[in-house]
């Protein structure tokens, strides 16, 4: 019963979009539903992920490692790590979100979506447009009509900062 499995840890290679290779323990990628199915059903040892930039992949692997080490005693530390994890420029955050959505890492996807949502919360329309580079396709008349219909959505101290 005391047999050790440490010597037989399975190794897997992930290949990022720019052909950079990442070698990691197979157990780590099982957090991704997509990779788990590939590993279990096709018994592959190398998985190309051409749509994911290496930079993004590095971040995601960093998360998988931290998440695998999560125990009740370092919960606080993990929370801080998560906070820092999404504290990146929007473009990078969206790259991560798209990749995590593709890889189906459910807990992290929800966390990323919350982080993107937090960049919309309590912001003025003008600020959100600037931050996400959204161009309005409403006429000014339509827009003012809309503001009149739901005045409560435009009341209060809305944040105008765009960082």
């Amino acid at each position, binding site marked *: 019963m005391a047999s050790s499995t440490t010597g037989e840890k399975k190794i897997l290679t992930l290949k990022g979009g720019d052909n950079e290779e990442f070698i990691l323990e197979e157990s780590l990628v099982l957090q991704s539903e997509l990779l788990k199915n590939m590993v279990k059903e096709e018994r592959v040892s190398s998985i190309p992920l051409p749509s994911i930039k290496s930079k993004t992949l590095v971040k995601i692997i960093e998360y998988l490692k931290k998440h695998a080490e999560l125990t009740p005693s370092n919960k606080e530390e993990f929370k801080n790590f998560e906070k820092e994890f999404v504290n990146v420029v929007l473009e990078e955050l969206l790259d991560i979100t798209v990749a995590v959505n593709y890889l189906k890492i459910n807990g992290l996807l929800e966390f990323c979506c919350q982080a*993107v*949502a937090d960049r919309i*919360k309590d912001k003025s329309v003008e600020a959100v447009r600037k931050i*996400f*580079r959204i161009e309005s*396709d409403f006429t000014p008349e339509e827009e003012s009509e809309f503001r009149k219909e*739901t005045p409560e959505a435009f009341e209060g101290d809305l944040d105008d900062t765009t960082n």
Partner: protein
Amino acid sequence: MNYFERLPEGCILEILSHTTPVDAVRSCILSRGFKSALESEIIWERFLPSDYQEIIERSEFSPSVCTTKKELYFRLCESPILLDGGKLSFSLDKHSGKKCFMVAPRELIISWGDNLNHWQWKPHPDSRFSEVASLSSVRRLDIRGKIGTKMLSPKTDYSAYLVYKLVDNPYGLESANAIVRFVDYESDTDTENQANTVKLETLPESRRNGGYLQFKNGKFASMRADGWMEVKMGDFNSKKGGDGPVEARLIEIKRLHLKGGLIVEGIEFRPK
């Protein structure tokens, strides 16, 4: 390029459902794409409390009058529905979508409440309930209302309010004490000493500009949009709903002068 165009549709819906209802309504104005995304049933279903169907089943309200979840959401924000045969009313907080309840006067514990010399029970044109409690005269004023923390939205800061009106010439009601306690582990007597003073009258017009909104340890009453007045009795956090019932209590039992002219509509528990 619009950053959102890089995201798959499922992701966009997930993101928007992590904002608040008021953010979502505001985001409709961003562009036509957002407006149509924000009509999604998925988003509004998320903004509704997870147990909204069970709650509605306790009422006579028929949700089929609303064709979309969004419509249902705003219907529940704008007009409260009565539960359990009128013992309780339920509505949603427009900004957060969190649950608000008002305990009907008949469900409150009012000392001398069953004595017609002190309290009268009658219908009121502005009331959502079938009867209100009208105080003619009493020395010991003591009103309690209870709700299970399990029924509330989890992990939310709540406040309890006494909702009422004053007749033209109320007396003895200049101030009272209010307390909110967790019934299971905070005793009546311990909390009595921590009570806050509340003023059942609104701040006189003449003093409103003088920065006198809050006096020491207490609050003045304010007018509500539904024609009633309210005064905050205290705050608490619903946590995970495991703290058992929470009780809000209004008392003036130390100064035993006569009090009269209070019409009680209920005790409301809503997000802070």
